[in-house]
Structure formats: structure tokens, C-alpha cells
């Protein structure tokens, strides 16, 4: 049986805990605590150690999902949680004041891990952004010389989250979901 580990990260309130709750096939282990700065971060609770869930694949393989805390003060958890991981998903809250800076911060903090593995980026909260603009993130990725999947994703939507996961897995192993080779077809 194969085990794979994928890490979710991103700024506070970008939807990491929600994403794992959406994807997990088992009850999620959360370390949510009441936020003393709830007004500032815009939500009552915040993750202080990690979230954990897992996806059970039909093949018998398991994908373990780990979510990091978003605040810089918990960055020691970032190193701990990425250990042994095969890929990273960064969620960016598009409704934040400066989401490109958020993304840049996480791309920098996780750059070693990203270069060893792969990354996919989900832009969340686009439903409450006046003018969602994915171009600014693409420009940022160019600056970081990264070519990776990036799209709008609602952390509450299982289809969006599966798409994000699949895009990450595909960039790790392009053969994963490839259809079986077709029989020799003469037509062009």
C-alpha cells in the first residue's frame, strides 16, 4: 500500500482547514483555537499546529493531507509538516489587501520544498472579490520562474478541490490520468 503526503499552506483565512475538510474521507483532526485577533484575521478560530485528513483512493493508496497554520509565528510547523511530502498546495485569499505579496511570501518560504517536489495554487474567495485578476499571480509565477497549475478554487467545493489535487498530481506524474493509448488510427 502506498502512502503519499500533500501539504496545504497559505495565509490566514485562505481556506486551508476548509479545503482539507472538503477533501478528506475521514473525520479531520483540527487544532483550531479561538483567535485573540479575530477581528484582524476575520474569523473566530485559527489553526495553531496542523490539520490532518486523508483521501482513500480506490487503488488502495492513501493521500494524507496536512494543513499548516497561516501565521508566520508558526513557521516552525511549516518545516515539520513538509517532511516527506510529495507536493504543496498554496491557497491564496484573493480578497486580501495584497494577495500577490501573500503568494510571494509563501513561494519564498517553501521554495526549497517546491523545487524538490511540485506546487499547485488555488485562488480562493474570488466570489467576494470585485475584480478577480489571475494575471497578477501568473506574472508573479513568471518572476519566480515557476510553471505550475493556478486557478480559482472554492475551498468548500469538492469539485474545485479535486481539480486542484489532480492538477498537482498530474504535474508530479503526467502519466497518472492519461487515457489508455488508442489503437493505431489511420485517419489524420
Amino acid at each position: 500500500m502506498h502512502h503519499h503526503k500533500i501539504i496545504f499552506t497559505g495565509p490566514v483565512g485562505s481556506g486551508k482547514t476548509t479545503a482539507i475538510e472538503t477533501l478528506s474521507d475521514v473525520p479531520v483532526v483540527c487544532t483550531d483555537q479561538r483567535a485573540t485577533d479575530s477581528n484582524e484575521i476575520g474569523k473566530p478560530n485559527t489553526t495553531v499546529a496542523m490539520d490532518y485528513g486523508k483521501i482513500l483512493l480506490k487503488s488502495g493508496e492513501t493521500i494524507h493531507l496536512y494543513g499548516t497554520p497561516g501565521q508566520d509565528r508558526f513557521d516552525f510547523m511549516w518545516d515539520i509538516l513538509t517532511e516527506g511530502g510529495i507536493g504543496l498546495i498554496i491557497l491564496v485569499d484573493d480578497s486580501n489587501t495584497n494577495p500577490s505579496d501573500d503568494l510571494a511570501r509563501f513561494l519564498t518560504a517553501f521554495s526549497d520544498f517546491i523545487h524538490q517536489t511540485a506546487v499547485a495554487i488555488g485562488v480562493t474567495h474570488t466570489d467576494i472579490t470585485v475584480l478577480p485578476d489571475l494575471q497578477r499571480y501568473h506574472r508573479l509565477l513568471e518572476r519566480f520562474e515557476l510553471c505550475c497549475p493556478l486557478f480559482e478554487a472554492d475551498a468548500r467545493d469538492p469539485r474545485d478541490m479535486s481539480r486542484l489535487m489532480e492538477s498537482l498530481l498530474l504535474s508530479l506524474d503526467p502519466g497518472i490520468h492519461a487515457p489508455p493509448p488508442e489503437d493505431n488510427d489511420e485517419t489524420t
Partner: protein
Amino acid sequence: MRIDMIDSVLSDLNGSSADIEASSVVSTDGLIIAAQLPSTMDEDRVGAMSAAMLSLGDRTAQELGRGTLDQVLVKGDEGYVLMIHAGPDAVLTVLAKASARLGLVFLDVKRAAESIAKLV
């Protein structure tokens, strides 16, 4: 002021035994409320680590059928870190020497946590 009162509980605790080297009170989301730590130690770091450890301890005790968490104890070859709830919204973190008599430390820390719980 309450912070002063919490500070004085920490001073009493640090003074109660030579085994206790430092202590701090942290909100459960990892922000420092009061601290009496060596200047070499980063308060924010201590705060975040205490919150993460205690929260994981909470969940571990529950998930593995050990009931409600009482304390988290970390032992290194140069001493102990003891984390204990001070009411539902705060954590008391204490650093003790490797040679500490743990029974006494537990007793002092538990008393201090009870006093702090009334103040946060």
C-alpha cells in the same frame, strides 16, 4: 492591572524553586500574554510553540482515548518544558532544569496555573 498580577504570579513561580528557570503565559492561539524568559529566547517563538504543542496534546489525548489533557511534558537532555492549561484560553509554559524534582515542579506549576486562570 491584570498583566501585572499575572507577572507577579510568574515571578513567584520562578522564585519558588531554583529548578524553574523561566515561564510564560500564552493565549491558546500563540500570542504572549506575559513572560519571564531569558533575553536570548524569542517570546513569539515560545508563544507559538507552546500553543501548537498544547493544542496537539489536547487532540492526542482525545483521539487516543486519554480524556481531557492535563499537561504536556517535553524532556531534553538539558531540561524540561512543561505546558499546562491556565483556564480554557491560556497556556502556562515553564522551563525547568534537567535536575529538577518534577513532583515539586508539577505542584508549583499547577497552583500557578490555577491563579492565572482566574486572571485571564
